[in-house]
């Protein structure tokens, strides 16, 4: 069960640059560690994050094993029209988790 936390302002004025925070629960297992019995712990990481605003990609990130567990991102979006913000995380096997928020623009 993925847990996601989003911080998106409820409203913004047109042209305003809003700060967005997105946190997801994920071990980001690097694939470089061994367990207590010496076995290799397989890599299990999120590789891609995308933020779409009114169906356009406005920001994206590629993650590698150097990203800490439970990845947190703070980034920005310029408010234009009222619309839906869609956040999507995809892991190395193509599994994905997403969440949406509405941005009211005045």
């Amino acid at each position, binding site marked *: *069960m993925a*847990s996601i*936390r989003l*911080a998106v302002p409820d409203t913004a004025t047109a042209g305003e640059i809003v700060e967005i*925070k997105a*946190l997801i*629960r994920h*071990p*980001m297992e690097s694939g470089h560690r061994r367990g207590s019995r010496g076995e290799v712990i397989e890599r299990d990481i999120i590789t891609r994050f995308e933020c779409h605003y009114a169906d356009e990609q406005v920001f994206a990130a590629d993650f590698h094993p150097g990203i*800490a*567990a*439970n990845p*947190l991102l703070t980034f920005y979006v310029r408010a234009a029209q009222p619309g839906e913000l869609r956040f999507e995380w995809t892991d190395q096997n193509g599994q994905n988790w997403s969440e949406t928020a509405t941005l009211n623009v005045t």
Partner: protein
Amino acid sequence: MRLGALLASAALIGACSQPAEEHNAIELDPESIVSGSRFLTAETQALQADDFANPGFLWVDRGEALFSEPTENGSACVACHEKGLPGVAATYPAFDTETNSVLNLEGRINQCRVKNQNAPELAYESDPLLSLTAYVAYQSRGALVSVDSSGPSRETYETGRQYFQTRRGQFNLSCQQCHTENWGKRLRGDTLSQGHGNGFPAYRLEWQSMGSLHRRLRDCDTGVRAEPLPYGDPLYIAVELYLAARSNELPLESPAIRR
């Protein structure tokens, strides 16, 4: 010169303490009691204080969701605990007259599951139990620890105190030597705190996850090359009671961030 100072301090204690008697009871000076968060860097303190970015909230959120989920044959926690359980965590571990034993928060939650939800116990350190415990503990954030170690809890308290003061492991060290006699000094990349449980369940950066107080105790026992006790072991619950009584009046911080 800060770097040099840090590295040099790894050499620390050598100087430390006279040989202690086996149960040489030393208690913290009540005036000097401070939370483990005091020994974190400003960045880590800031992460703990950030109610969005603190990753411990991923478990608190999950616990909140579970709190209002009915079990197969029983009602949700929230059905009976409509106002949540504010302040409750600050009073645990506590004596339970039904089982005639001291229960910690995990044990109390499990008792409610069995007795009031017709559901099996959740495994210690399992994700649901950790999440529920984190959520219940969060509802006491800021409340001052106030456990009762008198009356029927006294015996358990004494058992915990003895465990704390007894040397163990290949290193032959007691909890007390590190956390009562040498707190504030540096050890590896760490600074020794007074060893309070007020931040737990806590998100340890090293675990890259939330974990219970017993997980921390297991790490400390392993650290001195002693065999750690199983999760939920009555002896660890006794230690937990002693730790809590020893930290009475400290505010609860769960979900705390620790190294």
